[in-house]
């Protein structure tokens, strides 16, 4: 809620919010594509092992950036939706955004725990060994695998919904919703 002491709601997101949005979007697409390809490689090959490591490094990066992003979002007033946006659409938009934030955090966490449960620690960028949070456990391994995969399909569905909503605003409503999040337009 904007209080009196806060400045009036801006017309667009801050540069930081825009940068975080697109950077995380790009990283998620890379991690998703790598995850898709690497799990289709039978057995293990040098390429597969490389993809696994890259996938995990990207996941850790997304998690760290998502935390920054959530903190930024909590401390900065976002631009308002167009005044004539119906309540149901407002709820829908915010609901999807909240779920996307949750998944940006939950998907890396489930992947990380899946790796820990598989007895494979994550060494960030091949340099920084990260702590294993849980002991190897074949049951948890299967659980986190399922969870990680399922949440990714949920994310895919929500991203499709998110993009369709943007198209709706851009093509049908012809309003300024997209321009709030575009870089280089200010």
């Amino acid at each position, binding site marked *: 809620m904007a209080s009196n002491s806060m400045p009036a709601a801006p017309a667009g997101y801050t540069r930081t919010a825009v940068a975080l949005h697109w950077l995380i979007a790009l990283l998620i697409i890379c991690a998703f594509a790598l995850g898709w390809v690497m799990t289709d490689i039978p057995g293990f090959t*040098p390429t597969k092992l490389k993809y696994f490591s890259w996938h995990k490094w990207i996941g850790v990066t997304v998690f760290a950036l998502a935390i920054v992003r959530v903190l930024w979002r909590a401390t900065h007033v976002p631009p308002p939706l167009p005044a004539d946006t119906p309540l149901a659409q407002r709820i829908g938009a915010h609901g999807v955004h909240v779920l996307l934030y949750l998944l940006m955090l939950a998907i890396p966490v489930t992947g990380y725990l899946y790796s820990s449960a598989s*007895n*494979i620690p994550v*060494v960030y960028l091949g340099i920084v060994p990260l702590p294993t949070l849980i002991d190897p456990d074949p049951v948890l391994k299967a659980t986190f695998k399922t969870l990680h995969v399922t949440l990714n399909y949920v994310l895919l569905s929500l991203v499709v919904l998110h993009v369709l909503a943007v198209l709706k605003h851009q093509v049908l409503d012809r309003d300024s919703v997209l321009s709030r999040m575009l870089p280089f337009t200010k």
Partner: protein
Amino acid sequence: MKTSFFRPLAAVFAAVSFMASSAALADVDLSKSKVSAISKQMNVPTEGVFKKFAAQIKFDPANAAQGSAQMSIDIASFDLGDKMYNDQVAGKDWFDAKTYPQASFVSSAIAPAGGNKYNVTGKLTIKGKTETVTVPVTYAQSGATQTFDGVLPIKRSVFNVGTGEWKDTSVVADDVQIKFHIVATK
């Protein structure tokens, strides 16, 4: 190579004759003992455990030089925690477990290295290749229980473990550590 076939047999005969002749031969408790190999892929330490092995140890710290140690490891029992990976590692490029079902170590000399440490020199055979190695061992005794701990660094390329596309050590490092914890009762 003849030795690759006869060496394990010789080890067994040696063990049998020891059992018949020597009361000092320790009884190795396989359920409490562990032998594993730690490799690094993309700098991520990955531990695989040899689930089946046999060891014959005769050791008295008061007369270390007279001691002896032999071990034979069932290569097909190597467990990385994933059946698909285990099957692949047992294959030709890696251990070739069908052709070389056993790895072995047979000591030739034991020298005190200060305190409770000993250097055990002997012949290590993996994948039909025999190398003389010196294993640093830390010894502990409590009551009738003897424990032997150590880590032996080897290079997998020396034993032709990892051929073809795996000869490249940029993904799976050449350096491998063989780690053991042997519990025996006198």
